[in-house]
């Protein structure tokens, strides 16, 4: 069994039963940050150093989307040869009132529509003999097959 590690340390919970993005929440004003903010709350009228880890909502609505039809340049590492186009989603989280990007799991741009409900999933970003690097993706809640 390979060692599973998150794509970026501290950014996500890679428990398959509980996939979540991890941000930070300011104890003073309640502002939420993703990626995690550890030094100072970025609300300019707050600036508190008290930031605690918080899991973001695993569901949201599709704010917009696009496709990567050509292989992005380094440091992107393609998973397939030849390169397979993929979709990228911007998903709006209601409670956090923020939009978070992610690659789209399983379906392409033709299966997406702004306003549809999306949920967080996990997928492999990179793999070598010892380690599997896990990233987050967005996937339509209804429809779309899991890859």
């Amino acid at each position: 069994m390979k060692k599973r590690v998150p794509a970026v340390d501290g950014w996500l919970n890679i428990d398959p039963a509980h996939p979540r993005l991890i941000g930070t929440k300011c104890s003073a004003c309640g502002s939420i940050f993703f990626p995690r903010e550890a030094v100072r709350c970025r609300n300019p009228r707050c600036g508190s150093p008290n930031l605690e880890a918080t899991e973001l909502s695993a569901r949201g609505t599709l704010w917009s989307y696009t496709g990567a039809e050509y292989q992005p340049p380094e440091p992107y590492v393609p998973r397939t040869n030849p390169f397979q186009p993929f979709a990228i989603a911007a998903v709006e989280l209601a409670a956090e009132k923020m939009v978070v990007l992610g690659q789209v799991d399983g379906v392409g741009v033709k299966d997406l529509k702004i306003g549809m409900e999306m949920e967080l999933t996990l997928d492999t970003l990179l793999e070598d003999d010892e380690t599997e690097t896990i990233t987050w993706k967005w996937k339509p809640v209804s429809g779309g097959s899991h890859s």
Partner: protein
Amino acid sequence: MVDQVAILGVGMHPWGKWGKNFVEYGVKAAEDALKDAGVAWTDIQYVAGGDTIRNGYPGYVAGATFAQALGWNGAQISSSYGACASGTQAIEAARVRILAGLCDVALVVGSDTTPKGFLAPNKGTRGDDPDWLRFRVLGATNTTYFGLYARRRMSLYGATSEDFAQVKVKNARHGLTNVNARYRKEVNAEEVLSSAMVADPLRLLDICATSDGGAAMVLCSMEFARRFTTNPVTIAGISAVTPTYPSTVIEMPNFSTDSAAAVAMPARPFRDSIAYAAYEQAGIAPEEVNVAEVYDLSTALELDWYENIGLCPTGDAVKLLRDGDTTIGGRVPVNPSGGLACFGEAVPAQAIAQVCELTWQLRGQAGARQVEGAKVGITANQGLFGHGSSVIVKR
């Protein structure tokens, strides 16, 4: 309203893929701007360079690099970086110096030699750099962000791929006779719509290329300008604002927006606030604008700018385009130079080039692409990591 500074001279090295050292383009543009102004290089008291980060150390210290190439003259110098807004940062450095009374006449120069293909982050592994991580983790190029905005405009305001193509058609026509433009060829909508899909819904011809090029300006105090002209083009306002927290529109190179959970969204989203600050400073209203040069990194993004700079209410950009208002001969022509569609982006030179074009327009020297009677112009642009960029000129 703030005091004005005069644009005494402007000059450019034609955009292209020339493969030469960036310094050569900057020097040519500077020579042309000095000649246009009628000012000797040895009389320049301040040099403001716009940095290029893709040409090694000389690019990071562009002000000194250009000053050395022109021949050390003992001027004070600065070098500015603000990504795509670098040129505006350099213009602002010179303008502020003049307004402070610390110099009478300054030279602003930006030039670039760019690599082929997608703009990629600097080499090396940097796990705490969002610009590196977005490529690594998301595979998100610059065009990804343009694609997100374009799709959103289609969904919210009914824009179509045909509309986006018409922006390219318009700009290609505008730039046909512009000797500084790289692409001088008519493009029809069918060619745009059949070009390769890059970042759905944007196709190859919807997206601007990267180019080599150089642009320069001689700026001076109003008093200094009186020795040369009674009616100079002047800078009435410059905006180089950051966003206001929380910035709730996804911006390159970020993974997310700010959260509006604890603090309400500001009165104006970032891109609206850029032009607003310039208008406030200039004491000019959007209705007074006769001509605009906006950053059409993509065709769809040009439409966004129409609304961001107040040429029409939010959602009406497509109507403005379809009505021909933004075509030369229309109510408020946008990108008469041909825009990035005809130039391709030469990062540190581009924001300066926008002002060069408006200067020619306001002087009535724009030839076949002249916007008749233009008295007020605005540029708009944005550099990644929160660099607003807008310059208002008038005559």
